[in-house]
């Protein structure tokens, strides 16, 4: 149908031509129109033409700047690299993926503005968010618009009950609640303090950690909270130092966690046993800024494989071809895009938000990505990954030292 406006001008009388020529040209133009129409009918009946198919619109609101921009921007680049790869190989059933990426600078207000634009532009899903501050503000807009919010890299405890909210990784609190008994079993029970960034849901995560410590036979000493981007971490370190904990649990942005460990090193403090973290810090931004003296004490969880295990994956090849460095964050971005694509491939045509939600809820141990473990959702469970890895640090790199299922 889109051919009509383009061919119409050819039917107009052409000035400066003799009547006979005009007639021949007119016949030729009619013939051309008929040819185009026939071709269009043929292509619509076969349904596999990528040129006539409308794109699949996705929205991504993500911090490309601001305090976590440096962590989230590479993830976004990796997602776009995978979507471009899919588009270059024909798209999804002939439909190209069109992504509207907007920077929210880790600000809930900016994320809300972006989300309103996505709703106005009728995206079929919002994906690729990175951060725990923005999703609680976005979800109340997406829910009534029946647009699924897919696979945030962050924690959104208030979102978990929303029928259109799907996540791959368990929130940081649940990760830590599973990880802490494993650590206390391997390295012995002891006293624990938790240091958190002040983000929505941080109090719930602290409660999860406290309960996990107590049920694993440990002693929960205290919890501390600092706003993201805190200028001076020394007071928190001094308080921890006064408690002499065996374990310090970090529930922080990777930058803040790295800054805290700098202050720990300056104050000559380290926990007797381990520094425990979730997938929030199992990334290069954290590890590259930590003093090597703390490496043996680092134990973190991750829902994606480490870069050291990803060399033969399709993701690694696509990222390298796109000039994107292969890190845990970019692998996560690529893996998330793979899961998005799998859901879009399986969703009923024409693709709608409800269709995507329905297909996700039907997944049971689906290997949707080479980066993530098998994924399961149901009507009552919208967290896809239940198995994850435990990383330690060897030669300055994360390596798998255990697995939790």
């Amino acid at each position, binding site marked *: 149908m889109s051919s009509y406006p383009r061919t119409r001008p050819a039917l107009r009388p052409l000035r400066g031509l003799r009547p006979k020529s005009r007639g021949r040209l007119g016949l030729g133009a009619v013939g051309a129109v008929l040819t185009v129409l026939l071709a269009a009918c043929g292509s619509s009946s076969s349904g596999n033409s990528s040129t006539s198919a409308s794109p699949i619109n996705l929205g991504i609101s993500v911090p490309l*700047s*601001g*305090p976590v*921009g*440096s962590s989230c*921007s*590479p993830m976004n680049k990796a997602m776009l690299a995978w979507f471009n790869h899919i588009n270059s190989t024909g798209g999804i059933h002939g439909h190209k993926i069109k992504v509207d990426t907007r920077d929210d600078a880790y600000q809930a207000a900016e994320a809300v503005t972006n989300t309103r634009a996505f709703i106005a532009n009728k995206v079929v899903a919002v994906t690729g968010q990175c951060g725990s501050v923005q999703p609680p503000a976005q979800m109340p807009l997406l829910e009534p618009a029946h647009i699924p919010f897919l696979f945030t890299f962050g924690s959104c405890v208030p979102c978990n009950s929303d029928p259109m909210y799907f996540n791959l990784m368990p929130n940081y609190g649940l990760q830590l609640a599973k990880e802490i008994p494993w650590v206390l079993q391997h390295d012995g029970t002891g006293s624990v303090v938790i240091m958190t960034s*002040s983000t929505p849901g941080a109090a719930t995560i602290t409660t999860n950690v406290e309960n996990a410590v107590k049920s694993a036979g440990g002693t929960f000493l205290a919890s*501390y*909270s*600092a*706003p993201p*981007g*805190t*200028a*001076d971490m*020394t*007071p*928190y370190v*001094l*308080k921890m*130092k*006064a408690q002499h904990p065996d374990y310090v649990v970090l529930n922080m942005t990777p*930058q803040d966690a*790295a*800054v805290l460990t*700098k*202050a720990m090193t*300056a*104050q*000559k403090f380290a926990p007797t046993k381990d520094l425990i973290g979730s997938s929030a810090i199992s990334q290069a*931004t954290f590890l*590259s*800024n930590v003093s090597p003296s703390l490496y043996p004490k680092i134990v973190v969880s991750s829902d994606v494989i480490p870069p050291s295990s990803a060399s033969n994956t399709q993701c690694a090849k696509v990222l390298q071809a796109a000039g994107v*460095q292969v890190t845990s964050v970019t692998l996560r971005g690529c893996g998330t895009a793979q899961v998005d694509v799998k859901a879009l491939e399986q969703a009923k045509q024409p693709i709608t938000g409800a269709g995507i939600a329905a297909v996700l809820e039907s997944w049971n141990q689906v290997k949707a990505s080479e980066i993530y473990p098998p994924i399961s959702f149901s009507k009552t469970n919208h967290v896809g990954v239940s198995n994850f890895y435990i990383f330690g640090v060897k030669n300055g790199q994360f390596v798998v030292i255990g697995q939790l299922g």
Partner: protein
Amino acid sequence: MGLAISVIVSGIAFGLLIGLLSFVLVFLNKATGIANFAIGNIGMFETFAVYRLYTSGINIYLAVIIGLGFSVVFGAVVYQVIMRPFSTGSQANLLVRTVGLYLLLAAMADVFFGSHQPYSFPTLLPEGGISLGSAVINWSDMITVGIVVIVVSLFVTMFRFTALGLQFLAVAQRAATARLLGVRVPRLSMVAYMIAAPLAFIVALLVAPSQLLSSQMMDSILLYAFAAAVVGGFTSLPGTFAGGIIIGVAADLVATYVGGDLALTSALVMMLLTLAVRPNGLFGTPQVARL
């Protein structure tokens, strides 16, 4: 009690850093009539430039010396390009320029240097320190004290014993009269920026190793520095260090005993209370005008 003393000691170290940035703010305010909101990011941008030199293989100390030279030129360029054109405009116009410059420098740092930030910036000062109770006073903190003493001494000397200092004081007191008496205010303002930019660079060099080098590394310190400038008195250069120490110690004590989320809030409350109760700060002098 031991914890409180340790926190006070760390608060003084933090406060001196705040005070140094506050000092630069107040100096620019006195010399040019405008407190430049972008001063923290000027230091940040210069530090990124030095980091780029360092990662290209230049020795860090040599890179810093080159950076100091660059910062003098950068200060002059900032004044000539951003602040000088139509500088007789309103105060609001000039203030908005500083906010614009603040945002521009952050954006430029993100574009030119920020692809994998934050970066580990090498520590220029000796690591380790002396244990005092449960706190460790780092050598870097003590060197910061030394830097503060040197900076204050140099400025006191300049203001008391040099013609340049006298001209700065004249402009700060009465810019119009100073201009009538032959003081070339634009040139003096440019010199002020050529002094302020290296000082901001030094502050950023002290912040970067512990805060990690990123385009936002100076943001929260700048807020504390504004609070310190108000508490100390926006017209008093020595007052900035007193204000910095008061704010630094108060913020660290609040973070320790009340809650980290209220540390910055406490500094801002102190700033507002000072403005309400003692508008010229603890060490500022009231501006007197003859009617």
